[in-house]
């Protein structure tokens, strides 16, 4: 399908660097929204600040481009004021897990009926490549010139522990799976969190021996391991290497949700 009807074509060309993974996630999202049969008038896209957060600016529906880290708080207000609106949040690892971490866990705890899609490039992309809370230990960034010494957040683990109804992780390599996960999230009442690992050739790949766009996609492909398989390996007492990315549906449940019209 083509997305011309969903895109603000007059805003193109977009600001993303050639080979950026964010476009893939926007595509998957629009595809999922389209599959849901949602109308443009009933959707609001909300975002904070970052390359990832620029996404709503390119989509024709109503949108709220807010302050860094606060998208979920703003989205909560929208949903509580008008539960008939379908509210989707685009965010980045910095936006969601650094400056906005508190809103993230409380959104999950309240299980507010939002779909939150995080484009996790493991870096502050927009400001030029400083280390974020998901920068892997040892990875280089402009604020960790000899490698990050801090542990990275497991965003999905955090969402699941904090109470989100639906949690899934894929990468920009897993286009079909990611689309399906977003679609499932959109249809699921309560807080749905989908983490999409994406390449940032400009500010992450370039500094971390993943120079070509394809290098990082290859990396995602070769390092992804399905949650069920990881579970089996654990049961068999096999060790899962630290650098593996566990993908798939990581939580789905039916806790009472906020912001759903009875």
């Amino acid at each position, binding site marked *: 399908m083509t997305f011309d009807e969903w895109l603000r074509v007059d805003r193109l060309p977009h600001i993303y660097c050639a080979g950026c993974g964010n476009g893939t996630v926007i595509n998957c999202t629009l595809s999922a929204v389209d599959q849901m049969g949602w109308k443009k008038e009933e959707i609001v896209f909300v975002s904070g*600040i970052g390359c990832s957060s620029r996404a709503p600016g390119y989509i024709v529906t109503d949108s709220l*481009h807010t*302050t*860094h*880290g606060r998208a979920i708080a703003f989205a909560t207000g929208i949903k509580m004021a008008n539960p008939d609106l379908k509210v989707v949040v685009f965010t980045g690892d910095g936006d969601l*897990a*650094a*400056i906005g*971490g508190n809103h993230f866990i409380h959104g999950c705890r309240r299980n507010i009926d939002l779909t939150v899609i995080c484009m996790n490039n493991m870096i*502050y992309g*927009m*400001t*030029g490549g*400083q*280390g974020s*809370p998901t920068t892997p230990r040892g990875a280089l960034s*402009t*604020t*960790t*010139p*000899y490698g990050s010494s*801090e542990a990275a957040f497991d965003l999905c683990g955090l969402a699941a522990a904090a109470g989100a109804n639906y949690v899934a992780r894929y990468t920009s390599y897993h286009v079909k799976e990611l689309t399906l996960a977003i679609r499932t999230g959109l249809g699921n009442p309560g807080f749905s969190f989908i983490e999409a690992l994406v390449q940032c050739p400009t500010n992450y790949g370039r500094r971390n021996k993943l120079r070509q766009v394809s290098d990082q996609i290859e990396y995602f492909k070769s390092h992804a391991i399905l949650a069920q398989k990881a579970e089996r390996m654990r049961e068999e007492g096999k060790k899962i290497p630290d650098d593996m990315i566990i993908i798939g549906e990581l939580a789905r449940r039916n806790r009472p949700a906020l912001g759903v019209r009875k």
Partner: protein
Amino acid sequence: MLEIMEGSHAVAKSVGLCRPGVIAAYPITPQTHIVEALADMVADCSIDAEYITVESEFSALSACLGASAAGSRVYSATTSQGLALMFEVCFNCAGMRFPVVMSIVNRAMGAPLSIWNDQQDSISLRDSGWLQLYAEDNQEAADLHYIAYRVAEDHRVLLPAFVCFDGFILSHTYEPVDMLTRKQAESYLPPFKPYHRLDAADPISFGLFAAPDYYMEFRYAIDQAMKQARSIIPEAGTEFSEMFGRDYSGLTEAYRIDDADCAIVAMGSICGTVKDAIDEMRNAGKKVGLLKLRAFRPFPEKEVQKALAGVSTVAVLDKNISLGSKGAVALEIRDALYGSQITVLDYIIALGGRDVRKKDIATVVASAEAGVGDLFYGLREEVLK
């Protein structure tokens, strides 16, 4: 030694020479190059500091406050939205009298989002109890950091300080800058001597509840310290001038003002453009001068009165607006000149990075002479329709 340096790097290098023990900052355009350079220096052990990659500006300034309370010299840098997020902690730093020094790389406030320069961010923290110094060029931006630490940490002052300089216009511009040597920096700025700090052997509590019978006295004490800084800043600036030859002895700096009929008042990098415009107007026979404010807090009321005593008209260039009133600088100047016959006109200018050229300054002066002012300069009428 003169080096051609980016403004951010000149500031980062000076901050390194000020020897902070703890640096905590969150990246934000156009401040990032400063903290990236400092992160490099820490990683390379060229400065002996802890660099904390905090998760927000709120945490950055909170960590700085904590580190200062523990007895360390601290540093942070931010701008615009980042400074807005620090609002609560800013008042706490001043209230607990911690001499934190922070660079503000001036940028407009959202919404709408803008990464470009004006001075709304720091001006909006006018009442927070922080000293505010403004730099005209990269040399001054670099040098004011030494002076800011000296004054902030002076036991007669003990207040936090902003060193403000214009985003992109200075931060991302290369200029020749004369850097102090390590030895010079050490001789000018001695190690931090906390007035009081967290010490298990001598316990003390900061920031406790003040009931109505105490609160006002705390605020009064901060105000007194601010007023005290009116003489401490020139003292520290004079010593700097004597040691290194660059003159920061005044809270203000006058340019060709002695016989002027019309004076422009401005802060920051715009003063460079104004000086050039004044030279051209002077060549054309117009008696125009500039009063540059280096300190905005404390406000140099006496210096302003003295410097402007001989002029008939003052045109204030405000890169900020107290919406519903006027530009913050014009309000101060009017207050300082209250009761005189001098006309003070306000020009809100260069918001959100709109360029100001020499001919704009000439137009402002012509308007002021015609008595037309208190306006937004250079509005695009076609956009307003």
